[in-house]
């Protein structure tokens, strides 16, 4: 392409008035073959545009991991919840049983001590009866 033409296109290019086709023409001129010395700076510009377009996204695309993670998280959480409820219930039952045992044993102790008192009273009664018999005789 003629230099005069390129210069015209460059002028248009700087004013953002070029079409995509004209820009391709410029791109080809500046990246392939010799460039007029006074237009050197465009060589770098278009060379950069060309290399910049070759940059690629190389990571593998993951569409599932996140979803699955959340699912497993909820499963794990519910298992933990069930487990802790189970353990908690067991502990509570144990506590209740202990409490009951303490109450019952306290009651029984009370009963036994009262029975002993009764026994003593009855023993007094025997003594009394014996002495009455002696006197009556």
């Amino acid at each position, binding site marked *: 392409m003629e230099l005069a033409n390129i210069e015209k296109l460059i002028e248009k290019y*700087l004013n953002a008035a070029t079409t*995509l086709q004209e820009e391709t023409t410029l791109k080809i001129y500046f990246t392939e073959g010799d460039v007029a010395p006074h237009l050197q700076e465009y060589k*770098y*510009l278009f060379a*950069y*545009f060309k290399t*910049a377009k070759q940059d690629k996204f190389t*990571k593998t695309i*993951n*569409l599932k991991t996140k979803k699955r993670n959340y699912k497993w998280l909820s499963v794990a959480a519910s298992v933990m919840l069930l487990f802790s409820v189970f353990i908690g219930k067991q502990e509570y039952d144990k506590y209740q049983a202990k409490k009951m045992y303490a109450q019952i044993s306290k009651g029984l102790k009370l009963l036994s001590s009262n029975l002993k008192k009764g026994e003593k009273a009855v023993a007094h009664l025997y003594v009394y009866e014996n002495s009455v018999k002696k006197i009556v005789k």
Partner: protein
Amino acid sequence: MKQSEFLQVVLPFKDKLFRLAKRLLVSREEAEDATQELIFKLWKSKEKIENYKNVEAFAITMTKNYCYDRLKSKQANNLSLIHTNYKEKETSLDKKIEYKDSVNLVHQLIETLPAQQKIIIQLRDIEQYDFDEICKITDMKPNTVRVALSRARKTIREALIKKHNYGVS
């Protein structure tokens, strides 16, 4: 929409999403994360996608908005995104190194542009979108797009000339 169909739609333009994200977020790792996130988002809204005529333009717009959000939260965290590791190698006589440096310089020059101009340069000069699509993606009027593009091109060119002249003298 099945996974294979979805990938068939998305794969052709995944690199474009990545390049735009990289242009705006600067670091490669972050752009990769962003792309992954965006593709996942697209996958989640796959029912909606089926009704869109132009999934690519939709995805690019999504990328733009996503990156803007990221940049905003970054600014809130006071993290600067501008890399200022400009290498000065003007004394080098090796033409090849000079050439490579100048090409890299373009990259750095684009980095210093405002985000809006960056997007337009990326979409027009690198991805070769036509003006209608750019207007839709950026939600701007054709005239504004042209003015911004012209400004960006002139800025880069002037900076390149400046650099080049310093190198010569």
